[in-house]
């Protein structure tokens, strides 16, 4: 009896505490990233046209091949129509009533952190994003995180580049990669998400403005977390970022993505494309905490988040793992997927999607088993509160040659209140007899009995909901890098504020 108590992990207990604290310390303004920063911008003329595409390409000093590629995408786009199969409803987006390029005027191309506009550094500081290498280097508490900061249409700064380049890692903005590493970009761009893949991906191909580029050479284990922090600041601006990550054979990288935007009455469009390529035995871990402005309590404003994310396990025994925490956006349309091409490759998708107010989420994944002995694992947790709608949509398929393909899917939905909805739409397709696919789904509510029990122990309503929801998402939270885990637990509490009573 009385085992050694010392081995009980205390870190997570502290994090739970942090969640509960953050609920208590909530301001009236629950979306704390809703501020606007007054920074003068260089804008493209309003609207979408061939001229807009040329304008963007010129601003970026792109080579001719890139402009041609964009124009081809634009022409394709003109023939396409918006998809309507997702369970989301919104007014027609007027593509002519927005700007496709906005860049902070003050910093055309800062060479180092010292040249970055202090107002920008201050803004990222306010967002909790560290852009100061020196401070991070001096401190011992925080693990190192290299950051590419993208505001509106441009990357404003990328930290730790020098240190990373010593081991041959390239971490820079995609615009820079197009100029500096054209052979890599040409080889891999659109090799996972083809130009004409879908309406939003094609639009992105024509007008994408910036994003991150990561190249991990053969056999290198990236020594720190890489991250991109996306910020929409300008009014009436669409953000179209493009991220490309290439992990050569036997390499490893963990990449984090965060996003926020100011509170505005009008909706803003965000249509990103993310492509991952993992070669033999390589592993890419991609984590997102998406906290775009969700709109106000009546459903006014917010970001329309139409994103195409796909990873290609191109090499044998490669692995791609997506972990996402979706708490923001008025509309989320997003299906981070894995193409399991290499024999023995593995795909994972761990998701927490929280909707409150009038948010609409239609998100999930696709696991396409092409190679032999491929396996995939999906754990999706949807939490719906308020008047929101939360749909999990997932596809698992096995090609005829995908012998011994394995998938395990678990979808759990938690409802808070009785005005919201949770839906699960799985598509399962197997073309060979050796594939084994398992699918489990549950829907539950936070019961009055659970609430009463927690409150009887002294927890307030908000504390109780945060605790129960954090328990519900526990098996996904564990897959997040530690830094994101803490942030996520706070975010969960904040996102669900006002969901009870």
């Amino acid at each position, binding site marked *: *009896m*009385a*085992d*050694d*108590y*010392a*081995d*009980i992990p*205390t870190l*997570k*207990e*502290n994090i*739970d*505490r942090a969640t*509960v604290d953050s609920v*208590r310390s909530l301001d009236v303004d629950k979306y704390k990233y809703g501020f606007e920063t007054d920074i003068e911008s260089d804008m493209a003329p309003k609207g979408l046209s061939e001229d807009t595409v040329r304008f963007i390409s010129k601003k970026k000093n792109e080579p001719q091949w890139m402009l041609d590629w964009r124009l081809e995408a634009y022409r394709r786009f003109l023939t396409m129509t918006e998809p309507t199969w997702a369970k989301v409803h919104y007014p027609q987006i007027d593509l002519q009533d927005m700007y496709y390029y906005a860049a902070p005027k003050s910093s055309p191309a800062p060479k180092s952190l010292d040249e970055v506009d202090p107002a920008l550094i201050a803004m990222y500081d306010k967002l909790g994003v560290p852009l100061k290498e020196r401070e991070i280097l001096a401190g011992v508490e925080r693990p190192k995180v290299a950051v590419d900061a993208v505001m509106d249409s441009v990357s404003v700064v990328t930290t730790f580049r020098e240190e990373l380049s010593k081991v041959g890692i390239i971490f820079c903005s995609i615009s820079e990669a197009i100029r500096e590493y054209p052979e890599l970009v040409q080889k891999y761009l659109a090799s996972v998400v083809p130009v004409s893949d879908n309406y939003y991906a094609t639009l992105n191909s024509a007008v994408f403005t910036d994003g991150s580029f990561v190249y991990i050479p053969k056999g290198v284990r990236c020594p720190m977390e890489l991250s991109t922090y996306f910020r929409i600041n300008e009014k009436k601006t669409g953000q179209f970022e493009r991220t490309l990550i290439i992990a050569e054979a036997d390499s490893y990288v963990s990449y984090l993505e965060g996003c926020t935007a100011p509170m505005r009455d009008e909706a803003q469009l965000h249509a990103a494309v993310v492509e991952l390529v993992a070669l033999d035995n390589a592993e890419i871990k991609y984590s997102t905490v998406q906290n775009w402005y969700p709109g106000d309590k009546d459903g006014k404003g917010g970001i329309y988040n139409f994103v195409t994310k796909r990873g290609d396990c191109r090499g044998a025994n490669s692995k791609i793992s997506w972990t996402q925490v979706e708490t923001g956006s008025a509309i989320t349309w997003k299906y981070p997927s894995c193409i399991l091409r290499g024999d023995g490759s593995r795909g994972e998708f761990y998701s927490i999607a929280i909707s409150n107010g009038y948010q609409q989420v239609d998100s999930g994944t696709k696991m396409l088993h092409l190679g032999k002995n491929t396996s995939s694992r999906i754990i999706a947790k949807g939490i719906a509160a308020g008047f929101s709608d939360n749909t999990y949509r997932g596809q698992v398929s096995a090609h005829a040659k995908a012998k011994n393909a394995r998938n395990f899917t678990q979808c759990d939905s938690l409802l808070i209140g009785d005005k919201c909805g949770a839906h699960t739409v799985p598509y399962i397709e197997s073309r060979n007899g050796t594939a084994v696919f398992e699918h489990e789904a549950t829907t539950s509510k936070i*019961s*009055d*009995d*659970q609430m*009463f*029990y*927690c*409150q*009887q*122990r*002294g*927890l*307030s*309503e908000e*504390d109780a909901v945060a*605790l*129960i929801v*954090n*328990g*519900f*998402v*526990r*098996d996904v939270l564990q897959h997040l890098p530690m830094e994101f885990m803490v942030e996520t637990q706070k975010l969960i509490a904040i996102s669900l504020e006002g969901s009870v009573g």
Partner: protein
Amino acid sequence: MTTPILEIRNLHARIEEREILKGVNLTIPAGQVHAIMGRNGSGKSTLSYVLAGKEDYEVTEGEILLNGENILDMDPAERAVAGIFLAFQYPIEIPGVATMTFLKAAINAQRKARGEGELSTPDFMRAVKEAGTQLNIDSDMLKRPLNVGFSGGEKKRAEILQMALLKPALCVLDETDSGLDIDALQVVSKGVNALRDANRSMLVITHYQRLLNHIVPDVVHVFSDGRIVESGDKDLALQLEAKGYADFDGALA
């Protein structure tokens, strides 16, 4: 005379249109353990829920004073902070929340509400270890989600562990003996007895006398049709066990 820990005056409560408590009067001085016995459906459990402030019940008349203060306007969390602890007959599962996490959240929520600082992790661990040892609760059990897949005995021990850590002024034990074999009953009773204190009162609700052999009450009350119909010392429980409740039905009619 010092203020009793609990004083219930002419308490009437209903759920929807049905009146369940019909004029309960009960005073428990500090340091005493009172037992309430009664048959199923007599309203004993309702009394425990009304004390804890469960929303489904409406108090239509009367008062509940805790340390002399009326608690009827307090929500369940405020009552917990004021010192009421209810050991549930059927403890609720909280999936994904480690027992340890839950304990810490509860302790610190109460401390914070009282304007005290959070318990440091070493202090917390020490307190849990001390209370856990007494109840045969090992670290594996503390890592498991609260009450999820717990045996009947584990659930009740976890309740008493929470009680020990939260140090309430008033412990309400609702059918704590249900679902326990004799060994588990002894462990749980030992845990409860260790918490008997001159500054703490207990209300033990049960319909079997057997629990009262282990947790010996100062006063026994017989509950019937929503009120206390008879009170006496611990021998009253033995008498009930021998004769059944029939003699007390309608005793006040």
